[in-house]
């Protein structure tokens, strides 16, 4: 897992958006969100010490 990866992709999306490359920015943004969700599952599935 490369923790900097979503930031690099987010930066890429921001640069695409700034230069008006709408489709590329949306794709890069969507991939960033997918990685964000994937790594959230990785970091958030161990047991909590609370009753839910």
């Amino acid at each position, binding site marked *: 897992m*490369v923790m900097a990866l*979503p930031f690099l992709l987010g930066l890429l999306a921001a640069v695409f958006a*700034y230069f008006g490359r709408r489709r590329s*920015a*949306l794709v890069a*943004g969507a991939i960033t969100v997918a990685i*964000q969700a994937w790594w959230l599952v990785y*970091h958030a599935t161990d047991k909590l010490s609370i009753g839910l």
Partner: protein
Amino acid sequence: MQRTFDTLALFGLSAVLLVAFYYQFALGELPCPLCALQRVGFIVAGVALMLNLRSGYSPAHYGLVLLTSVAAGGASLRQIALHVVPGSGSYGSALLGWHFYTWAFVAYGALVVYVGAMLLVTRAPQAGERAPRLGFFAKLACVLLVVVAAANAAAFLLECGLGPCPDNPVRYLWWPALR
């Protein structure tokens, strides 16, 4: 009106990330993996608002804000749950009585409300309608977000290198002398 609000929201997102940077570099509080996922959400939301400003309004852009708000809001809720039991401690400093993960959860809730309101009041663009040229403040907001996104990418490369961040980071992997 929509462009004015998107510009203000874009400044707000950059301000949140700059405050986090202040705590990271001025006060030496290194972000944890869950903190990182919360920060990414602000960057992606900013990208979507920038798309509204640069390429014209589209519900797809606000859709991206909603998706990242759910993911990053989930990360902040998880971090709140980790520390909700009395005596389980906390991570980082508090700001105005709340820790940053609590503020992040409130901010993502506010983003969802903002998107809902903007989808209600914004007129759908006509076919072939082009986005107006960026004004000074809108351009400044876009440049600021790109700079903050680049700074975050560099900071996380310094902190974690090309691997995962530790749960409780205490030093920068690629620059141990930096605190």
